């Protein structure tokens, strides 16, 4: 996949807790390009999820910058094209980044269809009819059109996660963030979710995935990042990372998971 310019530039991103005693992120710098399928691997507690959640400001970074669409979103204000100082609109920013969580986080008091049309109608002002039509088309894509009237509790884990993915897609995001999307699933349901993600990648969606699925990282990712102790220790193509790792921590990690 040819890359066409960077979409998100992360510079020296830091997230400290307890006045710097705990460094969840300790200076991460990386460019995310359009069309990238970036897979972040690493031991638990390495800051992968914190990094991902910082991208759409679910965590507010202690330091560093995240340039998205030409705007440093970690600052509260920025100068626009006319030189005026404007507030960073976090809600607007988050619309452009879809996020999928480990525990699905579907809204249990709404049907699948309502889950999907809520944000498009309330946030983007799409008409109810258009939103429903789009939602049904998306559900059809993941084979769940016939469950549109069901409640989340009636779905299996794999089905819930597929709904969560298309719910995020309904907002037509520029980038999709996946936070361990298969970690809470029964083994036999992992495949159906990964298939949806693979299809997304083939369609050219920019994706950042924190995952423990090394097979997925190898097969679908075009860049693999290895993180430990809040730092980005090594990055490269899946080929480079999995067949000729250089960092001893990465070698150790791969020895345990492969």
């Amino acid at each position: 996949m040819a890359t066409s310019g960077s979409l998100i530039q992360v510079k020296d991103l830091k997230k400290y807790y307890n006045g710097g005693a705990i460094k969840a992120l300790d200076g991460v710098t990386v460019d995310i390009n359009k069309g990238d399928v970036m897979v972040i691997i690493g031991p638990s507690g390495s800051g992968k999820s914190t990094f991902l959640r910082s991208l759409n400001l679910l965590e507010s970074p202690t330091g560093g910058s995240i340039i998205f669409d030409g705007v440093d979103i970690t600052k509260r204000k920025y100068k626009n094209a006319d030189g005026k100082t404007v507030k960073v609109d976090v809600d607007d920013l988050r619309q452009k980044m879809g996020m999928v969580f480990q525990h699905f986080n579907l809204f249990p008091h709404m049907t699948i269809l309502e889950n999907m049309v809520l944000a498009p109608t309330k946030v983007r002002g799409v008409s109810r009819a258009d939103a429903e039509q789009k939602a049904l088309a998306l559900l059809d894509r993941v084979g769940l059109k016939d469950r549109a009237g069901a409640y989340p509790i009636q779905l299996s884990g794999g089905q819930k996660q597929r709904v969560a993915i298309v719910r995020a897609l309904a907002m037509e995001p520029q980038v999709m963030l996946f936070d361990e999307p298969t970690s809470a699933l029964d083994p036999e349901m992992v495949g159906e979710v990964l298939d949806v993600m693979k299809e997304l990648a083939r369609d050219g969606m920019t994706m950042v995935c924190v995952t423990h699925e090394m097979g997925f990282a190898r097969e679908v990712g075009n860049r693999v990042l290895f993180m430990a102790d809040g730092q980005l220790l090594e990055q490269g193509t899946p080929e480079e990372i999995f067949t000729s790792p250089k960092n001893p921590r990465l070698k150790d990690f791969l020895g345990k998971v492969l």
Partner: protein
Amino acid sequence: MGSFIQLENFPKIVPYAQLFWQGLAVTVLLSVFTVAIGFCIALVMALMRLSNIRPFRFLGVDANGIPRETGALAFISKFNPVSFIATAYVEILRSTPVIVQIFIIYYGIFGVIDLPNFTMFGFIKFERFFPGVVALGMNSGAYLCEIIRSGIQSIDGGQTEAARSLGLSQVQNMRYIILPQALKNILPAIANEFVVIIKESAITYTIGVQDIMSAVNAVRGATFIIIEPLLVATAIYFCLCFPTSKVIAYFERRMSHGDKR
């Protein structure tokens, strides 16, 4: 030497039956309005307590941009005046007797503010009923606030994260995601508070609200019998509260079935 209950006293109450019927209506209306007012106050207070407004936030960061964790400045930077006001309201109202609150509202506040002097439905004196409702509403608002707050806090944080990541604002998140789920969870607790208010409303007879208790007093004043009208009042309160709590229990069971589906 007379016995504890004298049956021949009951017929003496019959001429005053009208007072008990009116008292029943007053008690029910009082409770309904109290819950309505209390709920509105509670919702606002709960949202205030959970708000994150910190006007001195900038004091919490030192010159190098590192957040302060200790010291007076860190403390001031975390101060939320909106939450403080709501917390003070709740704690004061919960830590003082209802009767003191009612007297302060009736003799204090509405001793200064003149209320229109008219009767509702021909037997409810507005200038006494209204202060009673306000006082009970403010009091139950404090208790309901804690119920609503716990309801909101019981909703998994992932719900908010999902809503915000879809671009919903804080207000939209509350309105469409958090409150509908929280209110469903706390409906039994709100209904229980309703039963508590029915019983507590008896105290408003002290400011001359003509509820069931005031009917007892009227009978005592006219006939000098006290135990028998009290027993009638007991029966009426029981007939109000017991079925209500049974109905609540029924809905509670039905709703929990829905969750296990």
